[in-house]
C-alpha cells in the first residue's frame, strides 16, 4: 500500500523548510528547494510517485506559462532590432557551443548533447529582473531592453525543446494547428469569457486557462513535443491581459508556488546525485565556462554594434549568462525521456544552478555600469504609468 499522506507530508515538510530558509537568507525559494531536494534525494531517499511526477510536471507548465505572461510586448516592439538580435544570439551560441562540447569533447550522444545545448542556452529573466530592480535599471531603456532580450532567449529554448525531439507525423500537424488556433483565438476569447463569468470564488478564469494549457499539453505530448512550449506561447499572447489583471496573476502565482512548483524544484534537486557531482566537478566547471564564453561570443559583439559602453556591454553579457528555471526544465525533460543519464543530469543541473549565481556575482561586483537613475526620475516614470 502506498503511504500517500506520509509521502505528501515529507515533500511538503521539505517545501516548508526550503521556504523558511529562503526567507532567512534572502535567496529565492526555487533555488533553495532544488538544494533541499538534493539533500532529500541523497539522504532521505525521497520517493517519486506518479502523482508527484504529475504535480512536478504541472509545476513546470505553470512556471513557463507565468514566465511567458510576464513579457512586456510594448518594450519588445519598441526595441525589436536590439532585442531580437541580442536575445537570439544569446540562445544560439551557447546552444551550439555547449552542444558541440558535449558531443565532440565529452563524448555524449547526439540527443544528450542537444539537451546539454538547450539546458545551457537559457537566460534567467527572473534572476536578471531581481538585479535590475535592486539597481533601479528596470526603469531604464537599457534595463527593459535586456529583459525583453532574455524573453527571446527563453523563447528559443522552448522552441528547441518543443521541436528537436518531436515526431513529425499527423500528431504534430494536430499540435501545430491546435496551438496556432489557440494563439489566434485566445487574445479575443479570453477577455470576453472573463467579462462574462467575472471573478468568483469558484475560479472560472483559472480553470479556463488550465483547460487550455492541459489540452495543448496533451497535443504536444501526443506529438512527442513538450508541454512547456504551448504554455510559454499561451502566456506570451495573454501577457497584456495579465499585466492588466494583477489579481488573476497573483492567484495563479499563489497556486503555483504553494502546491506545484515546490514539487517541481524538489524533484529537480532530488534526482541530482552527490556522487555524480563529485565525479564530475571538472566537467561541471567546463560546462559553466562554455556557457559563459559562448554567451560572450554571441552577445558581447552586439553590445558594441549597438553602441553600449564597455562596462554596460560586460554587465549585459554576464547577466545574459545566467540561467535557472528553463535550464532545469530542459535537463529534467532529457532525463524523463531518457535522452540523458542520471550522471549527465546531475552535471547539467549543477552547471545551471552555478550559472544562476556566478555570472550575477561577477556582474554586480565588477561590472555594474553605475548609471542608476536618480530617485526623482524613478518617481516621475512611475507616476507616468
Amino acid at each position, binding site marked *: 500500500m502506498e503511504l500517500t499522506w506520509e509521502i505528501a507530508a515529507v515533500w511538503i515538510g521539505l517545501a516548508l523548510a526550503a521556504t523558511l530558509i*529562503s526567507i532567512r537568507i*534572502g*535567496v*529565492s*525559494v*526555487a*533555488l533553495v528547494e532544488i538544494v533541499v531536494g538534493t539533500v532529500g534525494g541523497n539522504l532521505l531517499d525521497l520517493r517519486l510517485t506518479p502523482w508527484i511526477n504529475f504535480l512536478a510536471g504541472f509545476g513546470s507548465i505553470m*512556471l513557463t506559462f*507565468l*514566465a511567458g505572461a*510576464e513579457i512586456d510586448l510594448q518594450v519588445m516592439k519598441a526595441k525589436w532590432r536590439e532585442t531580437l538580435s541580442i536575445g537570439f544570439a544569446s540562445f544560439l551560441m551557447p546552444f551550439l557551443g555547449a552542444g558541440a562540447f558535449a558531443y565532440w569533447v565529452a563524448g555524449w550522444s547526439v540527443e544528450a548533447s542537444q539537451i546539454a545545448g538547450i539546458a545551457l542556452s537559457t537566460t*534567467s*529573466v*527572473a*534572476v536578471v*529582473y*531581481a538585479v535590475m*530592480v*535592486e*539597481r*533601479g535599471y528596470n526603469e531604464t531603456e537599457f534595463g527593459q531592453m535586456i529583459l525583453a532580450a532574455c524573453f527571446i532567449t527563453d523563447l528559443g529554448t522552448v522552441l528547441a525543446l518543443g521541436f528537436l525531439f518531436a515526431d513529425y507525423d499527423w500528431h504534430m500537424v494536430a499540435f501545430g494547428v491546435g496551438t496556432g488556433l489557440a494563439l489566434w483565438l485566445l487574445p479575443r476569447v479570453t477577455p470576453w469569457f472573463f467579462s462574462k463569468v467575472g471573478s468568483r470564488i469558484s475560479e472560472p478564469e483559472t480553470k479556463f486557462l488550465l483547460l487550455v494549457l492541459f489540452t495543448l499539453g496533451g497535443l504536444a505530448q501526443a506529438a512527442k513535443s513538450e508541454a512547456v512550449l504551448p504554455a510559454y506561447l499561451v502566456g506570451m499572447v495573454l501577457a497584456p491581459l495579465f499585466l492588466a489583471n494583477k489579481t488573476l*496573476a*497573483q492567484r495563479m*502565482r499563489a497556486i503555483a*508556488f504553494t502546491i506545484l*512548483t515546490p514539487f517541481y*524544484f524538489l524533484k529537480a534537486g532530488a534526482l541530482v546525485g552527490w556522487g555524480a557531482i563529485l565525479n564530475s566537478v571538472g566537467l561541471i566547471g567546463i560546462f559553466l565556462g562554455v556557457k559563459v564564453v559562448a554567451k560572450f561570443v554571441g552577445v558581447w559583439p552586439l553590445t558594441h554594434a549597438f553602441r553600449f559602453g564597455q562596462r554596460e556591454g560586460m554587465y549585459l553579457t554576464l547577466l545574459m549568462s545566467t540561467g*535557472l*528555471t528553463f535550464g532545469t526544465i530542459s535537463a529534467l525533460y532529457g532525463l524523463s525521456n531518457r535522452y540523458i543519464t542520471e550522471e549527465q543530469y546531475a552535471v547539467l543541473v549543477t552547471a545551471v544552478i552555478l550559472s*544562476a*549565481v556566478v555570472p*550575477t556575482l561577477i556582474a554586480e561586483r565588477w561590472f555594474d555600469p553605475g548609471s*542608476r537613475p*536618480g*530617485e526623482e526620475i524613478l518617481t516621475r516614470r512611475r507616476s507616468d504609468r
Partner: protein
Amino acid sequence: MWRKILVGHDGSEGAKKALSVAVSLASQFGAELHSISVEEKLPHYAATVGEVLESKQEAADYFRKITAEAQQSARASGVTMHSHVMPGHEVETIVTFAKDHGFDLLVIGFMGHSKIFGRIWGSTSQNLTKLSPCTVLVVK
C-alpha cells in the same frame, strides 16, 4: 548647527530611537528632515519575475506603513519629514543618497549583529559610519 538631516529608517527598534532623536534635532535647529528606507530583501536567483514582483510589493506595503507612522510622529513634534524608499544595498544606497543630496548629518540606529558576523563583515552602522560623507550619529 545642522541644516539638512537624514535618518535611516527600517522600522526596527533602533531605527525608531534614531527617528526620535532626528526629529528632536530637526526641531531644535530648524533643519530640513529626510528619512530613507532601503528595500534590500528581494529574493536573489528567483524562478519567476512574479516572485520578485510580489516580494517587492510586500516590501513596498511594509515601507509605506512604517513611513506613514514615522511622518505622523514627526508631525506631532511640528516637523515636516520627507520620506524616500529606494531599492538596493543598505549601506551603498544610504551613502550615495547622503552624498548626492548634501546632507550634513546622518542619524542611524545601532544594529547589533552576532560577534562573528560583526568581526567578519562589520555591522551596517559600522559601515555607514566608515563610509558616510557627513557626520554620523549612531543612536543606542
